[in-house]
Structure formats: C-alpha cells, structure tokens
C-alpha cells in the first residue's frame, strides 16, 4: 500500500494538483481532497486489461488495428472528434493522423467554448492565470456558469475563498456576484444575484458597457434586470481593484453564441480603462484547453479544422462535428476521449449510427457501445502519464499512480498511423 501525493485530477478544467491517493494492489482505495466529481473519477477505476471490440465482439488488438486502419483509409470524408479528455501528447498524434488521412478534426470545444474562441478572434481576451484571482481579485462575477456543480473546488481553491498576497482575508475581502437565468447552486452562495431573462445576455452586457462608459440608458430594465441594479453593478465593477468575470455555457450555448461572449470580452476591455479586469472562460473537460493549444500550434486554429487539401483549413459551422454529422457529409468518425453519442443532438447521433465509428476511450461510453471498432485504453492521469492544460492555460504533468495494463491513447494512435500508411 502506498500514498501518491499531489496527483492531478483531470475531471474538469481546474486540474487540481493536490490530490492524495492511497493505492493498494493497483487500485485506488482512498481519495483525499478531491471533490465529488474528482472522487468519482479515481474511485473504482479499473486498470484491468480489456480486449478491443469489432462490431461489439471481442477481437485481438491487431485485428482491431487492421479493421480501424481499413475504415480510416477507405473513408472519403472522415471526421476525427473529441480530444478533450486525453493528454496533449495524444492530441498531437491525433492531429498527425488527421493530416495523414485528410480528415476534418474537431474537439469538444465546438460544443463548449468554441464560441469563446470565435469571440476572442474578433475582439481579443483580457485574461489572467488563476493565481491572480487568489492574490488580487476583490470582485468576482460568475455569468452563465454554475461552478459549484461543474468545477466544485473552484470557489474553495481558486476564486472566492483563497487568501492571497493582496487579499489576506479571503472571502471577506471579496464580493461574489452571480448572473444567471435561474437561482442555481452557485447563485445561492453569492453576495448578489441578478436574474436575467433567458437569451438576453447580449443586451445586458452591452447596457453594462454603456453604463461603465458613463452613458445613460433610455430604459427602466434590460433583459429582466432593473437599470438601477445594472448601474449599481457597473459602479461596483469600476470601483474594484481587480475584477474577474467567469463565464460559461449560459453564454456560449444560447442565442447569439459568440456574440454573447463578445459582449463579455469587450465589456472587460472597457473596464481596463477604469481599473484592472480579466475574463476567464470556465473550460469544462480536463484537457479541452490542451486541445485548443495543440490544435493552435499545429493547425493554426483551435477547432473546426479540415485537412482534405493537405493543409489545415478553418471552418466553424462547416468542419465542426455536429454540422458534418447533421449534413450527412462525414462518412466515418474516429472518436477519442469523448462521448458524442451521449452529448450530441439527436440528428447527429442518428447519422453516427449509419457510418463506421471508431472509439478510443478508457470507459465503454455510449459511443463505444455502438462503435464499429472500440479500443479500451488507459486513462490519462490515472494509469497513463502525459501533459494537460488547466483552464487558464497552465500546463501540468500528469502522473500515472496506477500501473498501466491497457494500451495508451498514444499507442493506439501510433498503430493507426502506421496501419493507415501500410494499407
């Protein structure tokens, strides 16, 4: 029995790296410091060897590689999707494979913070690493996100609670404001909650920017929020020492998508004329930030890339996974470290059922259960080493507290690269 200290948890974009695991007989028997989501990731994880499956029937590793290579090689418009729950080393190989077979490649960003990337490409992004919040931030605004559910240690370890160099009293030195359509778990913990009418974020953000700029509004309420309250909020934002807006799917998934995020980013830009302010997207999956980074440094674009012409082309709305599936264009799909069968709209899942799907995943996900070829692999940060990028872009090294008994994502990808080359 041994204790592994300072292990990185890969459940969400927080990448908490202070987790202690007690390991016995290559199983995790105790998890310390992790939140419920993280505990679920470590507890009960089974590194036991599992055979790949072809059409639901167990097969040898080589048979699965051959079949998957054949599928990829013969596809005319293959789609590679996922990436966000594996290491950057595996993500780099995924891009290499996409380039080799002329595939479209897209990460879960397209159904998460892809719109944030689009907004950033239009207006830029004033941001910071998480430590600046701990050390300086005295005003926190959570807009369209619910960290108590999605990033459960965010408040305690990174934002509301921590005592920092210039925020010695921690929570007492900070004001927490939540803007949401419903009184969520996070809203209940806030000092101030503004309930916004669903779909009105863009107008409210623009109104706030106007108020910050000193303009007056010819309205009594905007988006269900009284202008008096917005004036109060604008005042608090200008008067703080260092403010931060965290934002999430409430902005990216709703009408307006990237325009809503533009609203946040240009408001924060304006605020930097009055005080210091940063914006931070609440990145969901453990290494979706890594997928963004890897695709940016290899393809030049963070998601929605196509290699049909032998070089990377950018096409949100065209090369994004949901669009390629719903249009019926993708004739084959490789899914790595993601479960679109569970998370994609029904029309996309229906199309997936008509094309060969290759799944690479430590767990038998809904996608893997229906796949033509399924490779059960080791999980990054549990029984496989690698690199992952935190929601603020800081890269951390993942240990492998358990001994690996299944192939890594990298090994399977390498085998597919060679398999396709020799087909």
């Amino acid at each position, binding site marked *: 029995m041994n204790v592994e*200290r*300072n292990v*990185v948890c890969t459940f969400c974009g927080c990448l908490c*790296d202070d987790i202690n695991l007690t390991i016995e007989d290559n199983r995790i028997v105790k998890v310390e410091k992790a939140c419920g989501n993280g505990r679920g990731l470590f507890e009960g994880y089974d590194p036991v060897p599992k055979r790949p499956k072809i059409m639901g029937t167990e097969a040898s590793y080589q048979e699965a590689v051959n079949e998957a290579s054949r599928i990829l090689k013969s596809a005319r418009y293959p789609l590679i999707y996922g990436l966000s729950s594996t290491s950057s080393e595996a993500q*780099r190989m995924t891009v*290499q494979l996409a*380039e*080799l077979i002329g595939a479209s490649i897209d990460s879960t960003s397209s159904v998460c913070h892809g719109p944030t*990337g689009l907004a*950033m*490409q*239009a*207006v*830029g*992004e*004033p*941001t*910071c*690493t*998480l*430590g*600046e919040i*701990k*050390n*300086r931030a005295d005003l926190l605004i959570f807009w369209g996100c619910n960290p108590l559910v999605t990033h459960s240690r965010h408040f305690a*370890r*990174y934002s509301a609670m*921590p005592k*920092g*160099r*210039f925020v010695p009293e921690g929570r007492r030195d900070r004001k927490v404001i939540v803007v949401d359509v419903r009184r969520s778990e996070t809203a209940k913990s806030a000092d101030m909650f503004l309930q916004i009418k669903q779909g009105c974020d863009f107008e409210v953000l623009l109104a706030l920017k106007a108020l910050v700029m000193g303009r007056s509004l010819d309205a009594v309420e905007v988006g269900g929020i009284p202008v008096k309250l917005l004036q109060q909020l604008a005042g608090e934002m200008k008067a703080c020492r*260092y403010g931060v807006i965290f934002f999430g799917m409430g902005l990216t998934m709703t009408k307006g998508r990237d325009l809503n995020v533009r609203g946040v980013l240009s408001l924060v*830009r304006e605020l*930097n*004329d009055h*005080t*210091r302010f*940063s914006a931070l997207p609440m990145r969901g999956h453990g290494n979706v930030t890594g997928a*963004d*980074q890897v695709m*940016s*440094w*290899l*393809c*030049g*674009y*963070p998601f929605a890339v196509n*290699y049909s012409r*032998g*070089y*990377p082309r*950018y096409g949100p709305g065209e090369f994004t996974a949901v669009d390629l599936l719903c249009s019926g264009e993708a004739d084959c799909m490789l899914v790595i470290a993601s479960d679109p069968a569970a998370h994609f709209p029904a029309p996309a899942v229906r199309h997936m059922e008509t094309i060969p799907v290759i799944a690479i995943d430590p767990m038998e996900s809904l996608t893997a259960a229906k796949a033509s070829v399924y490779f059960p692999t080791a999980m990054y940060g549990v029984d496989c*080493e690698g*690199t992952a*990028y935190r929601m603020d*872009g*800081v*890269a*951390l*090294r993942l240990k492998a507290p358990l001994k690996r008994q299944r192939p890594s994502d990298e090994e399977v990808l390498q085998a597919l690269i060679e398999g396709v080359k020799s087909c």
Partner: protein
Amino acid sequence: MLIIKGGQVYDPANGVNGEAKDIYIKDGKVIKAQKDEACEVTVIDARGMIVMPGGVDMHAHVAGSKVNTGRKLCPEDHYEHFRIAEKGLRSGAGSRVPTTFLTAYRYVEMGYTTVVEAASAPLVTRHTHEELQDMPVLDKAILITMGNNEILMDMISQGRFDEARDVMAWLLNSTGGYGVKVVNPGGVENWKWGGNVQSWDDEVKYFGLTSRKLLDALVRSADSLKLPHPVHLHGLNLGVPGNAETTIEVIKDIQGRLHLCHLQFLSYAKDKKGRMHSGASAVMEAFNKCSNVTMDVGQIVFGNAVTMTSDGPLEYRIQKMTGHKWCNDDVECETGGGIVPMEYKIKSVASAVQWITGMELFLLAKDPWRVALTTDHPNAGPFFCYPQVIRLLMDKDYRNHFISLLPPKAFKGSVIKDLDREYSLYEIAIITRAAPAKILGLREKGHLGEGADGDVAIYDPRKFGLRGCICNFKDCRRALDFPAWVIKGGDIVVKDGKLLKEFPGRVYRVAPDFDRSIEEKIREDFEKYYTLSFENYPVQEDYLKGSKEVACI
C-alpha cells in the same frame, strides 16, 4: 564524412573572410581537413557559392503560451500562407504567427539553424518545451522571464542577494531555460494594478524596491552565476517618444554585462511638441563606448505584424492607440503580457521613424560583434524578411530607393541620408551568425572552426531574390536567401532551397550550481501565492529529453 569543396567561406570567428576553403564535417562536427579512406564521403561542390555557419536568431517569439495565443487570435494570418504535407514533412499555416513545424521549416530553408525563444514565464515553460518538440531540425534555447518575479522581488527588496541568486539558478534549473529575460522590470507588476514604471527610480508598488535596484540585482546574480548569456533586457518605456533617455541611462549606469533587445523600439527622441523621431545617434554614441553592452536591433519591416510581449502595459497602450483586438494575460507571481496585431505602413510618419531608427542603429554601430540582426519576430517584422534587411544593409542604392519612399517628416533628427555605409558579407556573417552565437555563449555555434557543430548554410549569389517575398511587398529586394544547401549537424537537410527531411533538434539549457536549501526557504511562500503544488512546478525530465547542458564557467 561531408566535404564542402571550394566555397567562399565567411567565418568571422576564425578570421576567414571569403577565402576559398574546404570544410570537413564528421560525426556532426567540423574537423580538420583529412583523408579518411574508411568512411563514406559526400562532397558538395560549393564553387562560386558563399559558405557560412548556419544562422543564429537570438531573439524571436516562436513557441509557448503567448505565441500560441497569438496564433489562435489571428486566424486571418494563416488563411493565405500554408504548406501542404508531403514527403514525410508536416503541413502548416501562418506568416507572422506560423504553426510550429512551418516555423522550423521556414527558418531552415533560409539557412538558419539555431533559434532562441525570447520570453517564457517559468510557470508556463512546460508548454514552451512541448511546442519546441514540434519544431524539428533547429537547435533552440529559451529565455526565462524574471524581471517581475515576486519571489525575487521580495528577496531583493530585503537585501537577500545571495538567496536571490540561488532563486535565479533554481528557476533556470527548474525550467530547462538558457538565459534570464527581463522585461520592463517592475512595470509589469505595477500594471497588475493599472500602473507602470517610467524611470529607473520609479517604485514597484507594494514591493519596496525600484526598477533600477531590481535590474542591478538580477544583472549581478547572472554574472555571479557565470551564465553564458548576460541578462537580456527589454527596457523601460518601449515605444514611447523620448525613451532614448532611459535607454542611454541604463547603458551608462549598468554594472556588468547586459544585452539590450530590439533596441530600435527603445531609441526614440522627441521634439518640443512630443512627436517622436530617431534618437539612434545619441543611443549609439553611448552604446559604442560601453563594451559590456550588446544589442539586437529589432528592425521594422513594412507590412503586417503581431506585437506580442511580456510588457502588459505596453500592449494596453498599443490597443488604445490602434483600436485593434487585444489579449492580455497576467501570469501569477511572475509576469504578464499582451498581444495586439499591427501594421507598419510605409507612408506613416511613425512607422517610417521606427524604420529609420533601426537602420541607424545598424549603420552607426562601430563594432559589429556587439550587434545582432533581428526583427523581434513577429513584433517588428517576420523572420522571413531577414534577407530584405540584409539587402538594405549591404546595398546603399536599394536603401536610398527605400528612403525615397518614406514621408519627409520622418527624417527630422535623423542622419540616415548621410550614412552610405554598406555592410560587407563578412560583417553580415558577424551580425547574423558569429555575434549572436558569441553573445549567447554558444561556443559551438556561429563558426566553422574545428569543434564547431556542423551547421552550414551555402548560398548561391546568382539566386539571391529569386524566391519571391511571401508578403507581396513590391519594393522587396533580398540577399542571402534561397540557400543551395543547408547542413545541420553534418546532415544535408536543404537542397536548392527545399527541405528534404526532418529530425528532432536539441534544446540548449543551463544548470548553474546553487544552494539547494533555497527550495525549502521558498516553499512556504510558493504554496501561499501560487495555485499549484511546489512539487509539480518544475519542468520534469520528460520534457528535457535530448537537451544539452551548456556549462556556466
């Protein structure tokens, strides 16, 4: 064994100035001429060609967090500049912020074999190493930003200079870095409260020290550690009219070795109305006298650029001035930074003044051994325009034609019209190879003497300018581009300007000795102020495979 026969060799470090000489390379190293019946011999016929050591770029932003944010920020930079994957080589896209493989391929196809990533915060250097792994063939090194590091500022303000020196050493060891980068010392920390530093005696808020005290301590520490490369300084007031004053002050006052980067941006004078003009004459008068100071120029190239620096307040100012999209990133406890795309227009007085300033720095320099050619890629211009800058330095007719295109108002306070100096090939070899290698302290680079790394660029002078400029600037003329051959570590990698193959390059790093007890001393503060465990902070061995340690002697 590889023999390069009959070329005109320019190897200033060994006093070779264009003489016809054969170069022998074996096992990756330059050796004395010899007959060796035993091994296979490849001969390159270099008659009529210029043979130089591979180029050394000592200051470019090519890999890591800030650069990658720049790539993501500017998709429009990539649409029309791309490379198709073929023959075992990878694809890529981008011109000012190219993807990693494309960056490496382009440098090598220009005859460059060593590139230094100019700025990487310790906290995010793991990322820098990952990107450099995807930048093959080139040898690389990373400069680690320390000029706004809170642990260091605490110690220096408390007078704990020996411990500060140990922290510097610990940071270099913990990051796999090569040198110390200092950007706007104290100014970036002040920016985190909306302020800045404008003079060397301005205070760093809450830390109880001045910019001057901070820089002095860092320079002393670097010299005490015998780092091969001196502190690499991006000074105060970059881009501000009149900043030549703070530049001249640091040149005169600094005790110890100092490298001033992209000095063009820091050499402006101003008239009574506050408008900027070239201050290069005054700067070079001071610079020429102080042999402890070196510089790279950061020459402007007209066209699009992407400004990206750790100088947060500078990028905020650029954003206010241009109205362009703006990224800012405050990095906890260490530094900050920003990115704003820009354009240098030949008809703009400000851009023209900047161009003139850089040219004057080159032309007024008395000792080319203290000067390196850069464009602070991608801040002042893209690295693939070095051949244009070289042509401007070597060909005064071309330079004068260029000058005729600039707005007349830009010439106030300038002497450039009176400068008819032309750099010789020997001097170009100094400022693009021998000098940067020497200033960096990379003893096996930048020359072709016995023991040097077998990194060679062979240019056919008949083909200068044949490969068009990829930025469609109609007045672009080029020299020393389109190499006939490029050899890296004895391997032929480029033939007729085209890359033949790739393999991993090496990352050079330093590992100065230090008192290990410093780790325990800083652990408590570290865990108080950072957001990751002390144990997880250093760049692990996994990222340093194949790296090469350069001794601190």
